[in-house]
């Protein structure tokens, strides 16, 4: 499946057409929607954190690009999380409608890896800044 067809499958019209199955228990539908909204808020928090680091923190002495190194990936991660959260909502809703087991979520893995990576970059930036 190519990337363009994968993206086209996420458009609301396609989602509604390909839903199949029957309307699931409303509790599950609402829970799926709340999960998406919780990930959306996480994405917004990452964006605001990234912007705060770049624009509001004092520069790291000796590391002129330090703030951008920390802030820009956070903002980009926010955009990625929002899109992936929607894709996961579509997959989950489809599985719920068809009575299939819920697919495995990659989002906790993405977030954990990103946070670990950011922590590592932060440590390096701070160390370099302290040593200069």
């Amino acid at each position, binding site marked *: 499946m190519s990337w363009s067809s994968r993206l086209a499958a*996420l*458009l*609301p019209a396609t*989602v*509604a057409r390909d839903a199949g199955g029957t*309307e699931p*228990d*409303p*509790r599950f*539908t*609402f*829970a*799926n*929607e*709340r999960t*998406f*909204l*919780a990930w*959306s*808020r996480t*994405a*917004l*928090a990452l*964006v*605001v954190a*990234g*912007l*705060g680091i*770049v*624009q*509001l*923190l*004092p*520069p790291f002495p000796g590391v002129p690009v330090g*703030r*951008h190194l920390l*802030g*820009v990936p956070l*903002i*980009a991660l*926010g*955009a990625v999380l*929002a*899109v992936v*959260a*929607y894709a996961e*909502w*579509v997959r989950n*809703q489809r599985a719920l409608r068809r009575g299939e087991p819920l697919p495995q979520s990659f989002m906790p893995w993405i977030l954990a890896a990103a946070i670990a990576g950011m922590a590592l970059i932060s440590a390096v930036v701070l160390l370099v800044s302290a040593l200069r």
Partner: protein
Amino acid sequence: MSAQDGQDGQERELAGDDPEERDPGLGRERTSLAWTRTAISFAALGGTVLKVNVITGLVILAIAPVVWQLGRVTRGSTPEAGLPAPALPTVGATRLFIIAVSIAVVALLCLIVALLGSSAPGALR
């Protein structure tokens, strides 16, 4: 329990006000609150960006009431006395698609502001 309470209880039952029947697991209520929190998150981000770039901040702030309004679809209407509880809404993908696209666009705007905007270093000192 007073006679007044008894009468109220009877009216509530007529209105289909059994919480489990009207709103199973309080899912509608909790989802409605989740939408409100998301709208507040947009407003908080808009407020922060306002400090850096006024126009971008106002654009993001303007998204907050739209998100709140989108969440109102989930809330549904209060059932009228004697009528059966309204059916729970079918959640359309469009609203969530709008949220995802909004966040991606907002992130792009913030990226531009972060890269090109003049910083206010020490504002968080």
